[in-house]
């Protein structure tokens, strides 16, 4: 170890505790002769057994129980749960209630994307160890980001009843629907937020991006009339076009010994990519004119292949969500009732897929004639992206071997954060153990 310049045929990068991700995870990377021999993204957050908790519970409890899976994106869990149960019951929400759900989802996209973009990911590009350090030099940007995030939180509080884990969502709609006049302050705030989001796109577009292009299978919802949040078919850029109910025929989860999260694969294809990059690639033409103009200014085509530029796509989705929220508010017509009746009297199965901020979130429930859930399956976006993250590292690392170990580790963590992995709840603590084995 005292050799000042040891031969470096083998390098091992170990990050025992990944910082700036939502939850507890680690990275192990083994490199030999310029080839990445071993990549393990380890999620050691303990298993949480939500699918088992749901067994024997009434279908009406599914949205509130599953919302507890995540404090950052509880709306996504509520939405996928509601849609799955409503599908099982054979009911469809009337337009005003559907629109309110879309508005709530806009709020979650704004707050979740802002948290990741400003607090977790942007420091990578600018060389700061944390958003706190970045804030000293980029005060105005961080203040803008915090204010923008608050707009998302405010939508959640307004419509969901509170900031985190909304209490106003139910199977069949809402407990209480707002009156049109109640939206006025939110609409004014959203106008300002859209301007801030547009500035954010321009700001992130000017960041320095490592050169990389991935050949990805992008998987996400697609809807004929809108940029998808709650509804659509599951499409990929490689020809997949299925109904939500067919999800499990095409995707499977496998146990991998070193991680507590299951790896998802597209049967016969392998890793795939869900989230903003996939939504953008599959639904570009449904973005608003202002968002498309911002994308064009940022230099993005209809498909973005550089995962480091996911930060731009997230900014574009923030802008879109601000505009879409405004559209919903402008066109909103008060519903006759805040919910529709949902009853289940015979055994049935329901499937729901919605677009969580981090990507496709799949729920399936088997429900008995007593209304109790007999089986539940939940596939979150991060488990779908986990294999793709490892594949990215296998390709990104060989292009970056000239970097020092510290720089290489930085690049790897930045690459992981491209996916905004939500392991569950986060820390900001980093321990590094580096091993060098001269051959």
């Amino acid at each position, binding site marked *: 170890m005292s050799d000042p310049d040891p031969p470096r045929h083998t390098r091992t990068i170990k990050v025992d505790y990944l910082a700036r991700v939502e939850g507890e995870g680690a990275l192990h990377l083994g490199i030999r002769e310029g080839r990445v021999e071993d990549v393990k993204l380890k999620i050691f957050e303990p298993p949480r057994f939500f699918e088992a908790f749901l067994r024997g519970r009434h279908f009406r409890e599914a949205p509130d129980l599953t919302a507890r899976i995540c404090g950052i994106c509880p709306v996504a869990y509520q939405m996928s749960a509601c849609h799955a149960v409503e599908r099982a019951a054979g009911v469809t929400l009337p337009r005003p209630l559907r629109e309110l759900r879309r508005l709530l989802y806009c709020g979650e996209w704004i707050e979740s994307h802002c948290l990741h973009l400003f*607090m*977790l990911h942007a420091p990578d590009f600018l060389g700061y160890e944390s958003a*706190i350090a970045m*804030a000293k030099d980029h005060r105005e940007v*961080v203040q803008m980001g*915090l204010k923008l995030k608050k707009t998302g*939180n405010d939508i959640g509080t307004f419509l969901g009843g509170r900031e985190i884990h909304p209490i106003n969502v139910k199977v069949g709609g809402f407990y209480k629907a707002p009156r049109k006049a109640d939206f006025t302050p939110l609409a004014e705030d959203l106008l300002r937020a859209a301007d801030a989001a547009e500035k954010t796109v321009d700001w992130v577009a000017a960041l320095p991006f490592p050169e990389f292009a991935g050949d990805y299978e992008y998987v996400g919802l697609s809807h004929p009339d809108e940029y998808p949040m709650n509804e659509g078919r599951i499409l990929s850029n490689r020809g997949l076009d299925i109904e939500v109910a067919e999800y499990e025929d095409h995707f499977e989860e496998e146990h991998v010994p070193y991680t507590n999260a299951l790896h998802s694969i597209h049967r016969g294809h392998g890793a795939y990519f869900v989230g903003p990059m996939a939504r953008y690639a599959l639904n570009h033409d449904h973005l608003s004119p202002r968002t498309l103009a911002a994308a064009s200014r940022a230099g993005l085509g209809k498909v973005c292949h550089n995962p480091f530029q996911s930060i731009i796509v997230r900014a574009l989705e923030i802008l879109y969500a601000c505009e879409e929220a405004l559209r919903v508010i402008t066109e909103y017509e008060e519903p006759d009732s805040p919910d529709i009746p949902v009853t289940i009297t015979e055994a049935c199965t329901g499937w729901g897929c919605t677009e969580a901020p981090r990507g496709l979130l799949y729920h399936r429930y088997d429900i008995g004639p007593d209304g109790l859930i007999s089986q539940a399956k939940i596939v979150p976006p991060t488990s779908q992206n986990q294999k793709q993250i490892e594949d990215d590292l296998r390709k990104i690392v060989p292009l970056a071997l000239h970097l020092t170990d510290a720089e290489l580790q930085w690049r790897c963590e930045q690459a992981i954060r491209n996916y905004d992995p939500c392991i569950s709840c*986060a*820390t900001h603590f980093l321990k590094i153990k580096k091993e060098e084995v001269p051959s």
Partner: protein
Amino acid sequence: MNRTVVIGVGNEFRGDDAAGRVAARRLRDLAPDEIVVHESSGEALSLMERWAGAGRVILIDASSTGIPPGTVQRFDASRAPLPSLYFHTSTHAFSVAEAIEMARSLASLPDTVIVFGIEGGSFEHGTGLTPAAEKGISEVLQLIRNEIS
């Protein structure tokens, strides 16, 4: 601005983690009208929002630092960060300590920032406080009364 804001932080469903919130709730009944009392899950951005514009903020949080349960610690974070043990203990990406440092970076920290930590005895799932945490809450209430009088 000389307004004082008191914020009790914690998770109501994790045993003694609720100590800060319970203390704030009790303080609300006792505090003079000019003191604003909040409860919070500890999410940094909402903390920053709640103390915005205040001259003094007093935070009450449960701690898990290895000292005897029920022990109360007082920190003055007005000029220096909390001890490192206070970082990263929340279920959120950014918690009390990070919120204080973020506000300091943004020059939006109140002039006076006092943090009371009540060492918890149990952070198991469920509601209800241990006797040690109850004792800590009583002590904190007395200390805060002294602080604001």
